[in-house]
């Protein structure tokens, strides 16, 4: 959704026009859910994250704050913060998933299980990145955002975003080398 469109619909949303709010939900909820699921790996958590994101958005409208433009960047920022808070509330994984992964992988030769193990390894590795590093690479390489949109979401210059992406991939690679079977 382009900026001018965002401004128009946000003006209506501030008046709590049901149609505008419904349009916003329909436009952005699938992406927010997808983003949350990719990082959390759990449908219920992803649903909670999505619901809380839109609830916080309404709270901002109530207090006459929130975005004046670039609504997508704003909503993803809320979701990102929710996920970061969730990670912080959990015990940080020192050697994440090794126990699960190494439990008995050879007993489960099924490709689906192997894929799931790989996904969990990757999510665990992502939790070890800084929140900003995590945010920029997920938006870039999974959500396929352009760097200027990412820059708005993280509220940093594009150059800083690129540097963050570069460092994040390096860190992620170093973390994933711990897993012998991860396809780097």
């Amino acid at each position: 959704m382009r900026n001018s469109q965002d401004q128009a619909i946000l003006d209506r949303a501030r008046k709590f026009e049901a149609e505008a709010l419904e349009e916003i939900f329909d436009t952005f909820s699938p992406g927010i859910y997808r983003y949350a699921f990719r990082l959390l790996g759990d449908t219920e958590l992803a649903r909670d994250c999505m619901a809380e994101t839109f609830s916080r958005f309404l709270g901002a409208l109530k207090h006459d704050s929130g975005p004046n433009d670039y609504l997508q960047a704003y909503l993803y920022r809320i979701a990102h913060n929710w996920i970061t808070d969730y990670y912080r509330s959990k015990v940080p994984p020192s050697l994440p998933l090794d126990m699960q992964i190494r439990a008995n992988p050879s007993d489960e030769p099924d490709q689906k299980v192997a894929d799931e193990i790989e996904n969990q390894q990757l999510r665990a590795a992502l939790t070890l990145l800084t929140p900003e590093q995590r945010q920029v690479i997920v938006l870039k390489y999974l959500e396929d955002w352009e760097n200027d949109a990412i820059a708005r979401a993280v509220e940093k210059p594009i150059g800083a975003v690129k540097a963050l992406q570069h460092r994040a991939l390096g860190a992620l690679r170093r973390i994933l080398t711990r897993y012998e079977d991860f396809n780097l």
Partner: protein
Amino acid sequence: MSRVDDELDRYGKHLLAPLRETPPLDAQISTQEKARFLSQAEKLHKDLTTASKAAHTRQSRNIFDVFKRKQGIYFIKAMAITIVVLGILLGSSFTVYAAQSSLPGETLYAVKSLSEDVRLSLTTSSQDKLNLILDYTNRRADEINQLAASGKSLPDQTSKRYQSELESALQLAANMNDEQMQHALGQIKRQAERQGMTLEELITGLPAQAEPAVIHLQQRLQEQVSLSNLGEKDPQGFRLEMRARQHRPSSTSKITPASGNANPTDASGMPQPTDKQNDNGNGYGNQKPTQAPGHGGPDSGQGNQGNGKHTPEPTP
């Protein structure tokens, strides 16, 4: 996109590829969440509307209550003030009118002074203020003439007021822009010269003991001419000089004539200088204007002064 960016992009996508596949948002869940979202929005909107109405009602009620409570008091106060003001206006306007012809030492002279101060304080334009002050200096000169004609001595209060008005005229001119200042200084100089001539004639007919007070005023008028000349030739130097005079304790610089900051007087009623720098030992130390920094030329600030005798210059 550069080659490095491209490679990085490909590598990033490859590395995170396992998370690309996601289950779609279940339609039923989406519908439920949307309903919850819209319901929350409706509730918030209702709360906001109710709160806004309540605030408006509360505000209106408060205003009404305050008005009801206070309107009686306000009405009584307003009536009382109206009656008093009307009484003062009707009664005092005759008094003020009658006071205009009074002379120093008479009962109504205080009313005259006060009415002049009030009129001056109500004037906002610098040029109007200047015109008014110059008119007041003419009044002072007339008063001195009338006092002398009736054989009365010059009260110290009148001398102070006169000098204060002369100073105020110069200060006003100094605060104008160059063009206005030139015009104002011309007015000031012409007035000072005319009044100087009047006092010159007066001195010749005065008894010896009354001369010094009038001579002092005449010298002050000469100083007025000198400063006006300085301002006409060197506006910036004049402004600096006026600023310096404003900060000198001996300078009679306040615009309000009744401000009482004129030179102190001795027991005989003779004005005495307080500025030691300007004191030349003859008891009238204020007769020579201070040179502004960087303005030491022969013409700067020099007038016909110093010998106690005034040689009138032709009025331009």
